[in-house]
């Protein structure tokens, strides 16, 4: 039996990875190994995040000092910053591309792409993804889409400028504004490739989780990270195709002259022939993806922080089942709330009420998760590693940003708050900062697994505190601008008298943003330096239970040298009363931990219960 199994393994790995003598190209560039693809996603994601951040600093400078000139901007940006001031069109391009990069390239591909790829095979006990080839394609489509998006900075008319939601008619009429021309076309091409990449990735993740788990790894023994990545992938597979449908119709409107979204438009002095379409239909199709998208962004971060908080509190996660059910609840509900982005489109108030109710119900699973995080921390034997601090930071942002979601989900309040800085403050806390903190937590935590070395903890602390404080200093004041009615995406506040008083606040926010950006230098240095020079990692540096820490530090194809280990228990046996150590890996059978087994560990297996009872009697053990 064992020879046949061994033979199968060799056969499979041969099938999956081709020849064993690898060239530089097949190992680092066109790799089909999930661990290498994860690193490719991460490094691309980090580069895109830096670009997205630099763009945000540029428009923050404009918002803080709208009347000042900065000749250095003209040096770098040429005619887009003529006379040292950003041009209004370029300002719009900056906010559009900042949003697109952060939401899609960093927090979707950078986050899911990295950690789903790294952790799904390692934590469920598989040698690789269901289709390693598709996995490789997924990365290359992603990289191409990044390059195309960035290419739009190098064309005459500049990048797309109609906001990351690209509402028509600005996106549908190439002549509407400079950014509606070639820049918008490149945006659409880039996004089609991005969706293809996401689908290939997501389909692979779902199939791998369902079909390739190791022996003993039933669904209820999976770590919460895997649950989160799995449900995120399902969300992606079910919602991204709708965006494709919307984008295809938009491309026809732009390039062929159809009227899916256009009607009654006067451009300058010419009346356009398009008739009968409706831009609201774009909003429906867009937000049917767009809203699940925010959960695609936050759920992997929630999964990562569940794992990190449990490990570093040295306690089982509080309410494992409740955590899973709340993720499932969020996944399901996210499909029926998209209308809350459209309360002011003239929608039937009754329909608005329905969307309002479904939206507010999401507060329930979200609150369950928050409560469980806090309960896990409660009386834990906490280890404040940088990863743990970032995970706790996520919980903080999830609460402070989530609360304002209750305001915005309420249709009658949203009519006032819609398109103001209140919205900006809300989503930058709850999905921006929270998801970034989850991602950073994952990077600090799994860095030893990815690169075989440790990141410097002291720099990690510096990075955390500066980023945490500056994120609040940047986004908290924006709530008050929003409540006062200051609209988002405006180029300068100098033209409106009631906004003048917010100018000093904008200066403050910009300085905080610059501080936050500088803090990232600590991370970037730490990250790249540690890849080459960090302290060598041990096999299980955090004393964690999950399967990835049973693989050797040096990466090998197929992850485990011999047979894939069998799983006997859930991943959260930390500080189990009676146990010799404060963690029991998933691969340790109950027969080796007789001193700490509990009645419910055996899931009703009466024979095992009987054996345990006899052992308890012989060893005078009293089970609580």
């Amino acid at each position, binding site marked *: 039996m064992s020879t*046949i199994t061994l*033979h*199968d393994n060799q*056969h*499979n790995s041969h*099938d*999956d990875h081709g020849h064993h003598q690898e060239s530089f190209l097949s190992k680092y560039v066109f790799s089909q190994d999930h661990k290498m693809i994860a690193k490719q996603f991460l490094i691309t994601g980090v580069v895109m995040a830096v670009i997205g951040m630099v763009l945000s600093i540029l428009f923050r400078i404009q918002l803080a000092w709208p009347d000042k000139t900065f000749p250095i901007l003209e040096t770098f940006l040429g005619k887009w910053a003529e006379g040292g001031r950003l041009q209004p069109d370029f300002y719009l391009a900056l906010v559009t591309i900042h949003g697109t990069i952060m939401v899609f390239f960093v927090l979707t591909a950078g986050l899911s792409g990295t950690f789903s790829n790294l952790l799904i095979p390692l934590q469920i006990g598989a040698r690789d993804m*269901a*289709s390693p080839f*598709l996995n490789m394609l997924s990365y290359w489509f992603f990289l191409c889409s990044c390059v195309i998006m960035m290419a739009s900075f190098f064309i005459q008319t500049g990048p797309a400028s109609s906001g990351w939601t690209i509402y028509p008619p600005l996106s549908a009429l190439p002549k509407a504004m400079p950014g509606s021309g070639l820049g918008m076309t490149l945006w659409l091409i880039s996004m089609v490739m991005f969706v293809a990449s996401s*689908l290939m990735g*997501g*389909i*692979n993740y*779902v*199939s*791998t989780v*369902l*079909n*390739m788990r190791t022996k003993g790894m039933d669904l209820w023994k999976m770590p919460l990270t895997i649950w989160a990545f799995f449900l995120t992938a399902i969300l992606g*597979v*079910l*919602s*991204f*195709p*709708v965006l*494709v*449908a*919307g984008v*295809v*119709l938009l491309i*026809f409107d732009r390039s*062929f*002259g*159809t*009227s*899916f979204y256009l009607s009654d438009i006067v451009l300058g002095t010419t009346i356009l*022939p*398009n*008739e*009968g*379409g*409706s831009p609201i*239909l774009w909003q*429906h*199709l867009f937000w*049917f993806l767009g809203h699940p998208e925010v959960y695609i962004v936050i759920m992997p971060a929630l999964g990562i922080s569940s794992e990190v908080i449990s490990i570093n509190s040295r306690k089982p996660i509080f309410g494992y089942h409740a955590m899973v059910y709340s993720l499932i609840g969020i996944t399901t509900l996210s499909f029926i709330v998209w209308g809350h982005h459209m309360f002011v489109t003239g929608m039937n108030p009754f329909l608005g009420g329905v969307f309002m109710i479904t939206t507010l119900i999401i507060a329930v699973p979200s609150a369950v998760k928050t409560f469980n995080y806090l309960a896990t921390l409660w009386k834990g034997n906490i280890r404040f590693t940088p990863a743990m601090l970032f995970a706790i930071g996520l919980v903080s942002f999830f609460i402070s940003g989530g609360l304002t979601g209750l305001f915005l989900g309420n249709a009658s309040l949203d009519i006032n708050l819609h398109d103001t800085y209140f919205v900006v403050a809300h989503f930058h806390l709850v999905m921006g900062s929270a998801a970034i903190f989850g991602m950073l937590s994952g990077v600090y935590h799994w860095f030893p697994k990815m690169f075989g070395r440790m990141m410097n903890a002291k720099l990690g602390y510096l990075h955390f505190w500066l980023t945490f404080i500056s994120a609040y200093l940047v986004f908290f004041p924006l709530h008050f601008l929003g409540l006062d009615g200051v609209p988002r995406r405006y180029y300068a506040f100098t033209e409106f008298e009631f906004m003048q008083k917010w100018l000093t606040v904008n200066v403050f926010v910009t300085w905080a943003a610059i501080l936050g950006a500088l803090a990232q230098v600590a991370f970037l240095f730490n990250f790249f330096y540690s890849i080459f020079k960090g302290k060598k990692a041990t096999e299980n540096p955090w004393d964690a239970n999950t399967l990835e820490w049973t693989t050797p530090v040096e990466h090998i194809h197929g992850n485990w040298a011999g047979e894939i280990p069998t799983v006997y228990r859930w991943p959260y046996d930390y500080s189990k009363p009676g146990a010799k150590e404060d963690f029991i890996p998933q691969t340790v059978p109950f027969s080796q931990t007789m001193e700490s087994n509990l009645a419910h560990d055996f899931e009703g297996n009466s024979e095992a219960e009987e054996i345990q009872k006899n052992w308890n009697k012989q060893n005078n053990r009293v089970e609580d």
Partner: protein
Amino acid sequence: MEKELSELSFINTPSAKAKRFVVWLFVASSTIMFGGFTSYYIIFSASKGKGHGLVLPDAFLFSTVILILSSLCLFLAKRLVKQSNLSYQKVLLILTFVLGIVFGYMQFMAWGSLYRTGATLINNNAAISFIYVVSALHLLHIVGGLGVILNCIFGAFKPVSQDKLMFRLQIASIFWHFIDILWIYLYVFLLLNS
């Protein structure tokens, strides 16, 4: 002996199962995309109080019949492989492929006859443009499907082992029958929502 054994069981390995599942997931996401299109149409026609208002060209009906026939050929080819009757299945596979090409040709004919009646792509009634867009996107799926069928034909002529060929046919059947059913759905949808 051992090699044969492991190869024969290939279609039952977790890896093969996972790959079949990948195709099913693709089917699901594609269904959702066309769901997105047709919901656009439903909301559009409900809010404007009009549909495309055309009598669909006969070519669409013929192409539907042709696509069903090609699906039937593929079904028979797969059954022959299962019964280890490999001689006729090559013919049936090629027939599937040719019928797929004919389907594509019929779609072009249908667009031509729509165009001649004045129902052009660039139209102030988006419901008419919609017919072109969905049928074109469906045709893209057919192009992909032809690639999958071609993969089976190559497998049948090379020849790969019966087990591998069966796996390729399984993949092809899921995909090809899906795009068949998808077209029937789109055709009936357009018929009912004129």
